[in-house]
């Protein structure tokens, strides 16, 4: 089929999106659960202890995927918010709003598990290291996005104002990502990279990738679910929703 024949905007209509998301959510949810079980079994039961950190390192099976998702989800929030702002697309703005709470949760999990790991390893719950600080700022940005949205009564204005804020905050994501390279601080650099062989045991890597997949699917499932709820809330007077409710 030639590209021009595809209707790119089919799922931009809340009604078709609502049906599609309803069908997809169970698959993503089950996938998240299965990958999560597999990832945790590999991570907690099979992977060897670390030579330097003992068993304390096992928190990375939650910490690293959560930190990845916290940054990725912010980029997605900003992307969909921008689409909503530029093309005045309602569904894109709703998706941005639906992604933000999951992103904030991931940021919180990354900070919290980091603190649990830092106490036995660094001897402190918290240090004012560049990566920790910029991740904390990311949490503030998520909270700012959500509270600005909540403070404006008109949903369309709220979408667009919050989108401007999300776009300004995007500057922070590369700062977090490169902070361990730019500043020589306490937080260790990346162990996994696309360009060279990983410097960790293969079971550890497998566990981490499984958990990352699980977090990814979890984020998709919850965001789609939240977005469906937003569609119901905002389009409550549309004919198809009246029919759905019967």
């Amino acid at each position, binding site marked *: 089929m030639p590209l021009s024949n595809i209707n790119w905007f089919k799922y931009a209509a809340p009604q078709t999106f609502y049906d599609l998301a309803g069908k997809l959510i169970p698959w993503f949810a089950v996938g998240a659960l299965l990958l999560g079980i597999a990832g945790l079994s590999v991570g907690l039961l099979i992977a060897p202890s670390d030579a330097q950190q003992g068993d304390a390192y096992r928190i990375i099976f939650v910490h690293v995927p959560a930190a990845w998702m916290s940054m990725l989800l912010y980029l997605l929030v900003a992307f969909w918010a921008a689409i909503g702002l530029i093309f005045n697309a309602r569904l894109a703005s709703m998706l941005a709003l639906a992604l933000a709470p999951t992103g904030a949760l991931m940021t919180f999990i990354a900070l919290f598990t980091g603190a649990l790991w830092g106490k036995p390893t660094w001897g402190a719950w918290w240090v004012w290291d560049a990566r920790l*600080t910029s991740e904390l*700022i990311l949490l*503030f*940005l998520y*909270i*700012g996005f959500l*509270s*600005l949205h909540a*403070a*404006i*009564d008109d949903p369309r*204005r709220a979408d*667009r*104002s919050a989108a*401007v*804020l999300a776009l*300004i*905050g995007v500057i922070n994501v590369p700062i977090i990502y490169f902070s361990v390279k730019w500043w020589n601080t306490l937080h260790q650099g990346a162990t996994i990279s696309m360009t060279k062989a990983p410097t960790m045991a293969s079971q550890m890597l497998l566990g981490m990738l499984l958990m990352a997949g699980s977090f990814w699917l979890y984020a998709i499932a919850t965001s789609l679910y939240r977005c469906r709820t937003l569609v119901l809330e905002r389009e409550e007077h549309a004919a198809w929703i009246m029919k759905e409710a019967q």
Partner: protein
Amino acid sequence: MTGALHLFTAMGALVQRDLSLVLRRKNDSLATLFFFAVVASLFPLGVGPEPKLLQLIAPGMLWIAALLAAMLSLNRLFADDFQDGTLDLLLLSTIPLPLAVLAKMIAHWLSSGLLLSFAAVVLALQFNLTGESVLILFLSLILGTPLFSLIGGIGAALTLGTRGGGVLLSLLILPLLIPVLIFGAGAVEAHQAGQSVAGHFYLLGALFVLSLFFAPLATAVSLRIAVE
């Protein structure tokens, strides 16, 4: 050529208008200054009057106090004009909105950031800073406080007419101003530690130039969203 001249006269007139409004209501600017002085005086009472310690924390503390004081006056940047309809006229006028917004930010800086920078010099003497450190502090504030008005302007436009505007504004803007605080206070601390301050000033200058370009644009977009 006449077009550009016309723009500059219009911007000048806007700055003049805002400044004369400030002069007729001196209370607002004075309250900002006194808030700055009060917060700065709280620190020695809170952490104890040990001169060595105070000298150490003075740069960061004065920067934080200036930041908080600037936040106080920010939510009035557009609110009065929004209420009495001036903002609608600005939106409809032939001056490009980002330039009109920039004029208002300049007036805001002259009536808050500039005054705070001078006040900081006096307050710094209370904390045993050496003459050179005071000079560095003053210069870093002169370069850094315009960022409060520029980036703060975006927040003021976004929170225009929302519930709980003042607190929300600080919640949105303070995280964005953290880099300014780090490099601004860092310059003075580097000087105290006997290191070069050039790097900090370069980064502050880069932040200033970037914001000078982008902040009026973002503020103009936000204002149009808020007023439409």
